[in-house]
């Protein structure tokens, strides 16, 4: 007797269900007034940076990025900041909001204290170019130095290389990095020592060191064992708190440290 083959094992959902009454019935979206206090800097105008306040009415679903856009589009077109995807995947709009590094597009205004001005500043430790824009080149330089690419010296199979689900899981967390620099620019060691690789570069080294398909782990560990490498990390956890992707960065750095020690034994 043949049986019907089904690709899915999950049961078929019901054709019709009773929806709870509240569903979607949120009513009017609340509005409120908010003041952004933005750190302005434009060397074409002045060498000094200044604070400037902008007040506007916003909605409960709005994010800090929406408020910045409202300023730029309605009040002051010269306000300058980077952004692209506007939902937390491209990494363009990391900035210091109320003293904490966040993505402006992932920070809802209603989650901040809107009774006081919301301060918005460029991320720290990288040269400011104009308003909220910093020079990202030193950040990407560190990234490039850790060999952030798969190196495989084995013979190339005709099809894919095999990797177990467990091996794949081993480095899953650090594949989430979007290179926004929120972590690196929250690190006090990076602020005072511009030579330190910084957390993001180490995260991206980790992503390959623990990938079962990679053969260059020793070389990366050698690079990170440098005096400006992982040992400068003082485990303050700023990076982990700042990461908009929820990567356990401090743990990743600790794992790299352990890997260096294990190799030396």
């Amino acid at each position, binding site marked *: 007797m043949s049986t019907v083959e089904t*690709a*899915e094992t*999950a*049961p078929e*959902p019901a*054709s*019709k*269900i*009773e*929806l709870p009454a509240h*569903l*979607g*019935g*949120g*009513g*009017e979206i609340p509005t409120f007034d908010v003041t952004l206090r933005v750190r302005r800097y*434009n060397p*074409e105008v002045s060498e000094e940076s200044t604070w400037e306040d902008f007040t506007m009415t916003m909605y409960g*679903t709005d994010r800090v990025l929406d408020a910045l856009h409202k300023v*730029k*589009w309605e009040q002051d*077109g*010269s306000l*300058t900041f980077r*952004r*692209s*995807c*506007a*939902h*937390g*995947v*491209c*990494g*363009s709009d990391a900035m210091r909001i109320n003293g904490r590094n966040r993505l402006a597009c992932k920070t*809802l205004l209603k989650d901040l204290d809107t009774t006081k001005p919301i301060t918005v500043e460029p991320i720290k430790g990288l040269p400011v*170019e*104009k*308003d909220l*824009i910093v020079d990202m080149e030193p950040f*990407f330089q560190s*990234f*490039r130095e850790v060999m*952030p*690419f*798969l190196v*495989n010296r084995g013979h190339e199979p005709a*099809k*894919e*290389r*095999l990797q177990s*689900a467990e*091996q*794949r899981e081993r*480095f899953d967390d650090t*594949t*989430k990095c*979007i*290179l926004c620099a929120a972590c690196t620019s929250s690190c006090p060691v990076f602020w005072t020592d511009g030579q330190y690789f910084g957390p993001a570069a180490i995260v991206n080294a980790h992503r390959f060191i623990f*990938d079962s*398909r990679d053969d260059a782990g020793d070389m990366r560990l050698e690079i990170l064992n440098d005096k400006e490498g992982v040992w400068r990390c003082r485990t303050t956890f700023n990076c982990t708190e700042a990461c908009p992707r929820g990567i356990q960065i401090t743990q990743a750095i600790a794992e790299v440290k352990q890997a260096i020690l294990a190799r030396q034994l």
Partner: protein
Amino acid sequence: MQVHKYDVVIVGAGGAGMRAAIESGQRAHTAVLTKLYPTRSHTGAAQGGMCAALANVEEDNWEWHTFDTVKGGDYLVDQDAAEVMAKEAIEAVIDLEKMGLPFNRTPEGRIDQRRFGGHTRDHGKAPVRRACYAADRTGHMILQTLYQNCVKHNVEFYNEYYVLDLLTVEEEVTREDGTVYLQKKTAGVVSYDLATGELHVFQAKSVILATGGAGKVFKTTSNAHTLTGDGMGIAFRKGIPLEDMEFFQFHPTGLAGLGILLSEAARGEGAILRNSEGERFMERYAPTIKDLAPRDIVARSMANEVREGRGCGPNKDYVLLDLTHLEPAHIDAKLPDITEFARTYLGVEPYTEPVPVFPTAHYAMGGVPTNINTEVLQDNDTVIPGLYAAGEVACVSVHGSNRLGTNSLLDINVFGKRAGVAAAKYALSADFVELPENPEADTVALLDHVRTSDGGEKVALIRKDLQDTMDANMQVFRTAESLNQVLADIATFEERYSRITVQDKGKRFNLDLLEAVELGFLLELAKVMTVAALHRKESRGGHYREDFPDRDDENFMKHSMAYLDTDVTAENSEESIAGIRLGTKPVVFTRYQPMVRKY
């Protein structure tokens, strides 16, 4: 002004641009110009997967994939191109794996595969597991992996360089039959350095356009703020046609009111759509594959539910995506990012509550016409030597009138690679075309106008008005009346655009200035889309005319080709409306004859 010289210049550093750069950079002197940083491009927002008939988890083959692509595109797909894409898909996935892409794995350690809308076994019999994926961040992994490999191969990037003009020269050529035509040739590009405000001319033997889409013509869109169709715009202004621009894909599941994408992978993993009565309404519209019908059908069905009063919420203006019957652990493993979007932006917990969704403008099926070797065409069949296009900016056409989910990540990899190889090969055998005199003149004039115009009109307000009328009149349902309304509106926007005032007058990082330039592209492209939509008096794939609800193969089984009509004295006519002249181009058939499209 500085002049640079490269064999190959690639415009855009998303998936297509970087895939091309990996090939071209190893063969020829190559530069990549991007208006962002490489990993900021919108490829990174793609979620669900990339289809290839690896047959790792069940029987599959590339011919089935070709058929699905053709049928999904409502038979407007060029079948030779679809065949190339489906065949080379397998190598494209293996290439990415070898570059290090962390695909999800099967218990045997192979690349895992899952279902996706419109992808079926044996010509529509049942959904098939064809999408290779990395959780719901496949595009992120592709973008990162390609950038990592660009670093590995020392690809030269010019970051935050906006390309504002394509440099071409024209030569009279006599055909065999004695007729004469103007042959375009590629000389390079003009770009604007955001940091300094300086212009840089890049002379190049080959130029690859890989600038992505133009979703910002709409208000509700999954697209990034930066997707303003610059590549399509600069080509169009140089007399290069745009193909099939009336076909724009509305992705069914955008977060209601926001447009942020929730991947079709949610439905691939078992999520379903419900209306205000709790009904799984796709059972009525596509009885066989239901919620996994192609996007145009699902989007239209959703809009129809709302129109007929079965929408949810206080304004009854969205439907619900229900994942509540799925195991939370399964959701966490397969759909972590999109469930976080629902929590962050709508405050909805997908484990226990259905998520409000509505169609969101997602993808331009049309674009700069190319052949299967990614060479850009100046008419139906004349190649422009040295000019290439790949990805969303291009129209090969593998997507026809409606793209299947996952086929865009595939498109950028297959045709990005082809473009990189072809552009380098051409550059190594060709000479530089001499730059036109004052190559930067048009760009200087454009920027001077935008900088000095002082009529008080705000760029953001014109853009908002454009997006509003496009959402109201050019979305999933269209009529002659609604389309004429858009054209009338755009005429007033163009007049207002001539009177804009840009506040920022500086040189450094003047994004105010560039938003004004981008609006110019948006206005032009919205007009092209609408004129093409007005001409196509039928309904096919993503283009639905309520006044012509049926597909009309006899009159419209052909691509549309929109040209800038420089003859401003011409009256509006059947072929030329609002300064745009419409032509057609035959569809390439190889093995499939058009059938009624049912799922």
